[in-house]
């Protein structure tokens, strides 16, 4: 069944609080220098184009898409490293679950090395670890995946900067204007506080929001630690997906 999302439906998004996000130009993170627009962003308010967005069916996922321990295995053995379950709920600013939305994630291996031809770090590649996965949130907005804990790694930003262990996340939501890319850090990691990219977030509470919490109750005994990482997307005054468009 195909639904036509009608332009002009209600559901305006709350304005994005730009002071809560990193500003475009953060000189401590040098790569922003030439990639920062100098003009102010033009506020136009979302139109029907921004208030709609792509949707993805569960059928588009493969069975191992959310298992980074096994989804790139070359010889049937599993990725090396401290085994983790990462899970959380995708919510909007009204604390309403965002169901049926695509969440993608990518990361370095346990040694802190990415599988990429431009990667220059000395740490070894794990032949059985690709470093990418994806999931679609369930009816309550929950996603989960299995992986190994990524290592910290050096980068040439200021000669001797190090990235804390982190996992990259890309989330869609139900409107193109909710589109978000962020990074998840690990509770208790002292490397968080020396990272120029983390420091681009103006408010310490914002950094806390990016820090996944160890969840001992959801560990898999003798197997994997669990970390919970909830994600908040922009909220809207009335949600498009409650408009009976999905036949519910």
């Amino acid at each position, binding site marked *: 069944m*195909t639904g036509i999302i009608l332009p002009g439906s209600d559901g305006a998004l709350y304005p994005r609080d730009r002071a809560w996000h990193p500003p475009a130009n953060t000189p401590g993170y040098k790569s922003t220098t*030439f990639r*920062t627009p100098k003009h102010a962003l033009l506020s136009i308010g979302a139109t029907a184009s921004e208030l709609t967005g792509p949707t993805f069916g569960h059928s588009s996922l493969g069975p191992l898409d959310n298992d980074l321990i096994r989804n790139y295995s070359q010889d049937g053995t599993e990725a090396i490293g401290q085994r983790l379950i990462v899970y959380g709920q995708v919510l*909007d*600013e009204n604390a309403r679950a965002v169901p049926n939305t695509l969440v993608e994630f990518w990361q370095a291996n346990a040694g802190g090395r990415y599988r990429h031809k431009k990667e220059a770090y000395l740490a070894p590649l794990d032949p059985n670890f690709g470093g990418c996965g994806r999931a679609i949130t369930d009816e309550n907005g929950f996603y989960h995946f299995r992986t190994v804990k990524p290592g910290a790694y050096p980068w040439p930003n200021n000669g001797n900067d190090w990235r804390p262990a982190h996992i990259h996340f890309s989330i869609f939501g139900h409107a193109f204007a909710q589109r978000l890319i962020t990074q998840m850090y690990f509770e208790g990691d002292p490397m968080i506080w020396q990272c120029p990219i983390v420091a681009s977030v103006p408010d310490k509470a914002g950094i806390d929001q990016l820090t996944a919490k160890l969840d001992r109750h959801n560990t898999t005994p003798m197997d994997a630690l669990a970390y919970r990482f909830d994600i908040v997307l922009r909220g809207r005054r009335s949600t498009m997906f409650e408009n009976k468009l999905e036949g519910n």
Partner: protein
Amino acid sequence: MLHLTPTLKETPSQTAGPYVHIGMTPNFVEITGVFDKDTGSTMLTPDTEGERIEIVGRVIDGSGAPVADAVVEIWQASADGSFLAPTGPSSNSTPAFTGWGRQPVNGEGIFTFETIKPGAVPGPDGKPMAPHVLLWIVARGINIGLQTRLYFGDEQEANASDYVLNRIPDPRRRETLIARKEEGAVPRYLLDIHLQGDRETVFFDV
């Protein structure tokens, strides 16, 4: 009508980093076998209605250098001006046109989308907006994804009365959103995205 008040803060954005392709277009960087094909790599099916076009552009930084590590996503209406999507969590339907595409740039910062020319979508004032495509650009050094629009150079009349274009105070800056048409078997629309500099693209806070 009583509106809810936000109770949570949006998760802060972070840069996609230099290796965004690992997560978003893994097959492009030779991480194969995980996903059968890169998400968003194909927008069209044989059943897609509308005029086939290509959208081609370069992403250029403030020093004039190509941004060689970006990913660009587009979102657009169908030829009839509606936004189509497969619906429902268990839907197996494949829409004739996804409306959404994702492409990595190549080493020269160039992206290419094979799509159709969208129809006009009603604007907030009830009048049709000129045909347009939304673009979203992420890369190393971009702390929060940049949103912009592409308009079509052969739609001068529609562009002249477009709701959004007319909200750009400087007419010269409007030109940064208008793609130049190049005729061919499949017409191409060319638009460079300048992150900063004299020809800086208009980016939106929506």
